[in-house]
């Protein structure tokens, strides 16, 4: 019988096929979907994220791990819903205009979803006007903005000042490889997360404040 530790290892190694076997096995054995999520899937992504930061793994490994986690999530989602676990917070997420790099944004979306957020993913290269419309339509608690390039960081600054000028109250969290805490403060964002693993804690702290 496979364990949560086996599942975590399979996700870290990006073994989708094994994930697709172990998750149903665990559910069948009576392990709660919430435990699968919190004790295997999320810690696995946190671990791969840490290893990536330490240059111990490269982008392809990060991507296969994320795919493995996503497949695990798809299996447990109906079980989470039937267990009555409803999203506590609503989040919008996108990359800023001109930036098509979505690996980081997708990881944060997975982690937020895993943490029980309802995540509306606006995709890549999203203009400030589209962000505003989406906020008005969905009324999210938090907006996540991502930029991988320094060439697109000015677009991040523009979105924040545009929303502030319109007096939009949504909490704004920013991230991406070149983004820093001091840049987040400089452009008037509410929070900064250095990686997908800490994006959950940062968002929860921000929403509790």
């Amino acid at each position, binding site marked *: 019988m496979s364990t949560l530790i086996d599942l975590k290892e399979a996700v870290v190694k990006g073994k989708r096929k094994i994930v697709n076997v172990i998750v149903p096995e665990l559910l069948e054995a009576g392990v709660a979907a919430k435990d699968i999520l919190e004790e295997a899937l999320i810690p696995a992504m946190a671990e791969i994220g840490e290893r990536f930061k330490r240059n111990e793994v*490269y*982008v*392809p490994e990060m*991507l296969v791990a994320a795919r493995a986690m996503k497949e695990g999530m798809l299996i447990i989602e109906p079980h989470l819903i039937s267990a009555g676990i409803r999203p506590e917070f609503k989040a919008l997420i996108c990359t800023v205009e001109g930036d098509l*790099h979505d*690996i980081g944004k997708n990881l944060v979306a997975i982690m937020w979803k895993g943490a029980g957020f309802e995540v509306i993913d606006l995709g890549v290269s999203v203009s400030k006007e589209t962000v505003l419309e989406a906020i008005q339509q969905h009324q999210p608690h938090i907006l996540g903005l991502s930029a991988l390039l*320094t*060439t697109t960081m*000015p677009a991040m600054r523009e979105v924040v000042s545009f929303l502030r000028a319109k007096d939009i109250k949504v909490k704004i969290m920013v991230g991406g*490889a070149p983004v820093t805490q001091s840049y987040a403060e400089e452009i008037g964002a509410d929070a900064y997360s250095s990686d997908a693993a800490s994006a959950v804690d940062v968002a929860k702290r921000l929403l509790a404040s």
Partner: protein
Amino acid sequence: MATHLMACEVFRDELTQLFAELHLEIPVSYFEMGLHDNPVTMRQRLQAQIASLELEPKLERVIFAYGVCGGGLQGLTSQRLTLVAPYGHDCISVLMGNRREHEKFQKEQPQSYFLSNGWLKSTRIPGPQREAWIREHYADQDQDDLDDLLEADRSAFSHYKQIVLVETECKTSHRNRAEESCQSMGWTLSPYKGSLSWLRDLLMGEQCPDRFVTARPGEALKFTL
């Protein structure tokens, strides 16, 4: 003024040509390409080199053949030396000759994968060389897992449609590698006429604030983005 150049390997051909053209001899510390992947580590590496250069009593200035490079140059400081870096985003900005033009291009044509002559020497360019690197690096994986890794990696580049190759008066060219990459990925090749003028001005000691970020002793390099 006694000067030391800290440079990314990406510029080696261009700098070698400029030193000959300008009859200049400036000591150079080259660093490997790709440090911008981890800006924190990059900053630590460059700062450590500055610390060792501070021990050279006659040295007064360090110039950088870099841009802000993902933030790797942001905040570099020296107690004793003046630091000067092009106010560009990276090697692409520097060779394009204008950071605003780079930003505009990125915004208008975000599906562009920018390359310079130097980057074409890297094994990270999407296409046959990158795939060969993945096959070698993950040689211990079984075929299924290797196929997954290759497919996932290729998908990370799926949003690109063209290579924008910034070409300059540099005499060495690796354009054939860009062509190979385009063929493999189904992209088009769009040459962009850049120039070596920004690097030339850096070596000649120009410090115009719109084009160069300068930190005097005790100050930190600050790129506003």
